[in-house]
């Protein structure tokens, strides 16, 4: 067991890669009452085409299957795993993203038992035809719930405008039609390929003794048999650098239009640290110009092009990256044009030393705020780990950024061919 000490943050992480390949991280927080555990696999909605373990040929599985599998892991032959956590005073949850599936619990008592339950239920699948059928109705309602949410539709519409082929453009839950096709055999195929311990990480943060916890996890894993560490063959289509469609819109029963501007980010060939640097710089620059203290925000707000719903985000991954800005607008076309112009202007901007210092301070404050949350730490640590980034090195990384880095980034960031606009507009009457 290794100890990683982060003096400035006053935190310590214990880590070990077990014999079966599982990577374990423990963060001891004795002041907290709560313990939070997350067991995540490097498998998400984009992993749709791959070579199943023990086979030689690629298969493509129905859209939404990673998410479907996440739902079904909670159901066992004789019981529902939620009940097991309930009996132990814990609350459990799970989520599926583009690149990850994660199972989590939080508890203030029975920590050892809950860790045991987390490891065991994820590593003991039970899928039957009947339970697969039953889940289709539930997930269909989940999909329909999202269909009625204009913000979600605007977000996904933007992603679909940005990407031609890459499965990031497929809704994480799939469609009502695609999930109809899912069979229990498909679920086992995906499970066996992507849930090997060597493809997974376990992160536990909270109030426990790290030595004892590590021993418990090891004992649990050593008692189970796993196949030899597989090498997973995933396959993704060739994706052009340019956007699929530079403008798209849908009509919905909304009172106010929504307008999003998407930037397709270049991530090809970026290593962990470079990826982190790009993510930090783009979020700091967006925040400098487009947060409430920014000159662009001020102009957009005063001209009634945006309101409080205006937001921006950057998501960079190994396979894809995007930045999205936008929100509700009474003048969606004007907003789109103006934001695009502003983004293009950035190329000619030169950030002053003094401004960059303020940007760094803001980012540091934001990071410290996020570090109050064990959920954030556990989720983000696991996410970054898959990208080769150490969450606890983010603070020194921010401190080491220079004005020169920012200005170089600005010069090369925006390109007309990598921008798309997507709008949700009120349905025409009749």
């Amino acid at each position, binding site marked *: 067991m290794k100890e990683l000490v982060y003096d*400035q*943050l006053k935190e310590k992480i214990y880590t070990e890669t077990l014999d079966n390949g599982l990577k374990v991280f423990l963060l001891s927080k004795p*002041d*907290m*009452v*709560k313990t939070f555990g997350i067991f995540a696999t490097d498998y998400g909605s984009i992993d749709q085409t791959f070579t199943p373990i023990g086979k030689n040929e690629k298969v493509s599985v129905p859209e939404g299957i990673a998410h479907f599998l996440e739902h079904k892991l909670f159901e066992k032959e004789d019981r*529902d795993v*939620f*009940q097991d956590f*309930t*009996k*132990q*005073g*814990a*609350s459990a949850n799970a989520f599926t993203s583009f690149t990850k599936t994660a199972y989590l619990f*939080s508890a*203030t*008592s029975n920590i050892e038992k809950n860790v045991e339950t987390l490891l065991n239920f994820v590593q003991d699948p039970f899928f039957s035809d009947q339970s697969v059928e*039953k*889940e*289709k*109705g*539930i*997930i269909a*309602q989940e999909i*329909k*719930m999202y*269909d*009625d949410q*204009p913000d979600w539709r605007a977000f996904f519409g933007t992603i679909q405008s940005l990407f031609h082929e890459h499965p990031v453009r497929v809704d994480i839950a799939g469609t009502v039609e695609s999930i109809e096709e899912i069979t229990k055999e498909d679920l086992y195929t995906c499970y066996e390929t992507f849930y090997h311990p060597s493809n997974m990480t376990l992160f536990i943060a909270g109030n426990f003794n790290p030595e004892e916890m590590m021993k418990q996890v090891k004992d649990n894993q050593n008692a189970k048999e796993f196949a030899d560490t597989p090498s997973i063959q995933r396959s993704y289509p060739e994706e052009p650098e340019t956007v699929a469609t530079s403008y798209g819109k849908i009509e919905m*029963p*909304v*009172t*106010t239009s929504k307008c999003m501007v998407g930037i397709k980010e270049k991530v090809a060939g970026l290593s962990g640290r470079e990826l982190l640097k790009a993510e930090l710089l783009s979020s700091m620059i967006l925040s400098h110009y487009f*947060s*409430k*203290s*920014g*000159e662009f*925000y*001020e102009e957009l*707000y*005063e001209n*009634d092009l945006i*309101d*409080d719903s205006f937001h921006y985000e950057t998501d960079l991954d190994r396979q894809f990256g995007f930045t999205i800005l936008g929100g*509700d607008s*009474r003048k969606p076309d004007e907003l789109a044009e103006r934001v695009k112009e502003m983004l293009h202007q950035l190329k000619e901007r030169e950030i002053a030393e003094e401004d960059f210092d*303020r940007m760094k*301070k*803001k*980012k*540091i*404050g*934001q990071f*410290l*705020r996020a570090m*109050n949350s064990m959920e954030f730490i556990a989720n983000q640590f696991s996410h970054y780990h898959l990208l080769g980034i150490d969450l606890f090195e983010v603070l020194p990384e921010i*401190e080491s950024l220079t004005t020169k880095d920012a200005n170089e980034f600005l010069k090369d960031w925006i390109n007309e061919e990598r921008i798309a606009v997507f709008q949700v507009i009120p*349905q025409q009457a009749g």
Partner: protein
Amino acid sequence: MKITKEKMLEKKGYRLHILPSKKYKTINIVAKFKSDLKKDWMTKRALLPMVLQKATQNHSSPRQLQSALENLYGTILSSDGTKKGENHVISFRMEVANEAYLNDQTPLLEEALHLLHDVLFNPKTENGAFDEKIFNREKQTLEQKITSIKDDKMSYANMRLIDNMCKEEPYSYHVHGYPEDLEKLTAADLYEYYQTFITTDLLDVYVIGDFDESETERLMDKYFTREQSSNDTNITQNSTTPNIDESQEIIEQDELNQGKLHLGFRTHTTFGDEDYYALQIFNGLFGGFPSSKLFMNVREKHSLAYYAASRFESHKGLLLVFSGIAPNDYDQAKTIILEQVEAMRKGEFSEEEVEQTKELVINQLLETMDSAQGLIEILYHQVLSGHMIEAEELVNNIRYVSKQEVIDMAAKIELDTIYFLTSKEGGAQ
């Protein structure tokens, strides 16, 4: 139990709550202003925090104020207005990085407090009115907020349920206010109301984080003093509950894919009541967790919904059930939900389940208390209810709830209104 201890001090014009805790890397300051719920005030109280948070005499544009916050390591300032029972609460929340984690000597907390005081007590005005430009822009934003409530079907259905259920009660007043009131409102009117607000609302200020208690108190004394002209607002408005002769069923149509089925019950129980703890266990068994009857029956057994849950309002005595279903499944879903209430009344749950639910409720409470903002919300219940119950006591009282008390609670709960928001084509006709 590592629950952060609260120290409460009477200060000039407000109550100060100091909560030293090593759990956090930031310091949270929350100022809560409480008044009665009055229909005439709703629009003003919705707009007021939006305007205040935009500029002060010293930081005279939104951008200047935001830059000042940003200079303090991206200190966050936010505000909101909510209904808590028949009270209206405006909260200003500030979160500032703790100096201890920075390679910098700026006295962050001191500067942040100074800034917060400026926002609350020193707004930007001209000729006895708020700044016209800021006022008009925020007015527009609020107008948009009011019209777009309809875009979020879950909140809209919830609002319509309360509109119908609490028709005769102040609790039905809309938290974002009313378009007709907003239209008439001027920058001078709002400033006039501000003067009432700032002197007569009951103010509680919470400071939580890893700091030296006496130093924090000294800073508060330096920056936070308030001229209070009257003291008659310390009385919490008691919630009124009408007698229900018969429950009502209301169906409305809208453009949507998924129908929203919301049910409103009267619990006749509020924070501080002896059976408030039994209500929490009732809610846990009935619809508060994935192990509850609603989740297991509406979702797991009949695959009718992705979500089916319940929650209670601690100061108004309401229990609300909400679920998203296919429009055609209305009758079946409604029947199943009401059957679960019946099952609760008949005591169709085991002692063991009661014990487990206690653990879950306690777990939830302790988790909330681990978060700075969460703990403040829990502690503020005391101010709202006038019952001084310590955090630790809240947890302990849950342990004493018996199965019979949960059954008694189930018997006490009355169905008031069933509300269904469905598609234009479908369902429930």
